[in-house]
């Protein structure tokens, strides 16, 4: 890390749901923001700068919608900044915000990830029928399913690995009041018997389409120390990293992309982590289709190539395993696209602060937040810890 240490002292989330008809767009951001500020014991007046991330503007049908939120966010006369890096966006956004403190430019930064997907047809906003380009004949899952099939072929993973991941994440979501999906009746059989949308991906193994926002308040070392002194434990940022690679490069491995490997290696190096399986206590990993849990476990270096699925089957990634993954319920339970990355980052922070409520992992000291986007080509990660780096 650079000159200045960075602490997460506030985390605020909206209730995630399919349609948040009860708040306006700025109201959605304010709900998350004010909860984060209350957690940080601050007001908007204390904030030096605001960094906002979301996926394509076509979701809400507003170009750079943040400009119309300036008054609602108390940002008149302040810097407001908008990031867009596809699905990884709000992970990237948190990293940009962190950089503003790490560099010494600002002392207290508010960062927000949000999406109101109910404003439009998400499928439409994600992929227009562009002339000249080849049409995807099978939707978003149809893009990723062949790569998942290839992973299964390479790793010889049992067919029900994805079922186990979906069951775990949806059951974890029952412990998270903010989660979108609360499927009390979910069972192994109900997941397994759900419609096979894109064989090998079942309906219950896909993420929902959600409305929601998350906000984080980041401060410098003095701010983190002050919060700790008042009995409000901060999460210290131990490392941040972005990596990108082209969508379509000949020879690119889309099952375990190099950019993901490089990003993990970089963030672990910064955090002084040489054995992630041992040293990371809990991970929030961006898993929009259940099979991506074992795929990312390998890509991130938690498991040898071809063995990630064993961690899932052995219960290692369950709440009571030694590497709990997505205790919040993950993207499989909540997916406002432009917030999903920062939710991973924020949940990692909540875990090391001991503030994750019913989905808290006892004694979590070091956590990974992970986001990815585009054609599995954009990565953003951070490692946070209970201790100062």
């Amino acid at each position, binding site marked *: 890390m650079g000159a200045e240490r960075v602490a997460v002292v506030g985390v605020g989330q909206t209730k995630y749901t399919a349609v948040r008809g009860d708040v306006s767009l700025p109201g959605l951001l304010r709900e998350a923001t004010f909860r984060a500020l209350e957690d940080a014991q601050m007001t908007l007046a204390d904030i030096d700068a605001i960094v906002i991330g979301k996926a394509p503007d076509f979701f809400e049908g507003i170009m750079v919608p943040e400009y119309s939120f300036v008054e609602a966010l108390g940002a008149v006369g302040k810097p407001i900044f908008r990031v867009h890096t596809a699905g990884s966006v709000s992970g990237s956004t948190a990293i940009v915000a962190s950089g503003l403190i790490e560099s010494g430019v600002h002392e207290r930064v508010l960062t927000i990830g949000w999406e109101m997907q109910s404003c439009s047809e998400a499928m439409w906003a994600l992929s227009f029928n562009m002339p000249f380009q080849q049409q995807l004949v099978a939707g978003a899952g149809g893009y990723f399913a062949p790569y998942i099939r290839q992973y299964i072929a390479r790793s010889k993973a049992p067919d029900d690995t994805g079922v186990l991941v979906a069951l775990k994440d949806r059951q974890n979501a029952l412990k998270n009041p903010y989660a979108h999906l609360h499927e009390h009746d979910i069972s192994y059989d109900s997941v397994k018997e759900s419609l096979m949308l894109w064989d090998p991906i079942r309906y219950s193994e896909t993420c929902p389409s959600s409305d929601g926002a998350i906000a984080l308040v980041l401060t410098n070392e003095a701010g983190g120390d002050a919060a700790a002194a008042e009995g409000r434990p901060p999460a210290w940022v131990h490392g941040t990293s972005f990596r990108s690679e082209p969508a379509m490069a000949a020879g690119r491995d889309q099952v375990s992309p190099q950019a993901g490997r*490089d990003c993990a290696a970089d963030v672990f190096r910064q955090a002084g982590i040489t054995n992630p399986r041992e040293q990371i206590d809990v991970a929030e990993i961006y898993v929009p289709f259940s099979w991506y849990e074992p795929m990312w476990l390998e890509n991130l270096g938690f498991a040898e190539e071809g063995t990630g699925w064993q961690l899932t089957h052995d219960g290692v990634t369950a709440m009571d395993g030694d590497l709990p993954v997505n205790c919040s319920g993950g993207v499989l339970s909540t997916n406002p696209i432009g917030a999903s990355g920062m939710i991973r980052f924020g949940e990692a922070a909540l875990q090391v602060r001991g503030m994750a409520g019913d989905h808290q992992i006892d004694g979590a000291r070091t956590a990974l937040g992970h986001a990815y986007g585009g054609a599995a080509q954009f990565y953003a990660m951070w490692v946070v810890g209970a201790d100062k780096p």
Partner: protein
Amino acid sequence: MRDVAIIATAQTKHVRAATATNEVEMIQPVIQEVIERSGVGRHDFDFTCSGSSDYLAGQPFSFVMTLDAVAAWPPISESHVEMDGAWALYEAWVKIQTGHADTALVYSYGKSSPGDLPLVLSRMTDPYYEAPLWPTSIDIAALQARAAIQAGVTSEQAMADIAYRSRSSAAANPFAQLQNSAQPSALMDEEYLADPLRKHDCAPITDGGVAIVLAAGDKARALCSRPAWIRGIDHRADGHHLNLRDLTTSPSVSIAAEKAGVANGPIEVAELHTCFTHHEPILRAALGLGDDVEVNPSGGPLAANPMMAAGLLRMVEVANRIHSGEVSRGVAHATGGHALQHNLVAVLEGEG
């Protein structure tokens, strides 16, 4: 703060419509050119950041395709802003300040030609009260120009003079889209587009892009004989709702100028993101520039206005004049949103 400089720049020839090329084909030669000029190896940048707009391109994730032009293989540390490239430069500058990078490639581009630009920009308004009225960028600018004229900040004659001066200056800029102008008196005889704005008061609709290479400290000195040091850079927002703002001033520019240290020394040149002629007097006042300061010798946005790149282009123009030794200290300004809502100010200096 670390010393960070612009060490190389490149830009497209700016045109009304680049109908042969798509976005990546349009920006690729510029990126290749700036990389070659910088002396940094194609795969050796510590950070890459770009700015563009999905609404301008008319497709979601439009920046993904242009990533092809930066040879992101092996994978690179990279990010993107849905704003003018001036803010991509700001993110890169912050990244260098964190110590995680010593060099950065910054680029931005915009093809406004696919859509009806003033209508597209009407989508950049409050969705409840304003967007349903489809106010075009020119409608909103005209409200501001009217307010500025009524407040005595400018006049239609002064605005015509600015248009004349800018496009006359652009005659010496081989990349400009519009060069030369009829005399102000003739301009004043033209019909209104949106009273009090005439066509000459509006920046043209442009396709184009720019790229910049940043480097820190000794690296910059080693790679560039006269780096354009970023001595100060800051950005600020004003409110959105027109009825809540005094449109005749730009408080956010004044704050950014103060933070960037504009007044800490003489300003020899200013490149300002004037999308409309009346922006110039508002910005001059907010930046505290004297009447003797030369504004937009390149012609400015009134001569070439590639959306999402025109702000970064201001940095390019100031940096070029520092690189050549023509000036030692200048200010670059970029704006986003309507009626100068979001503003970035940077002070660039040559050494010695």
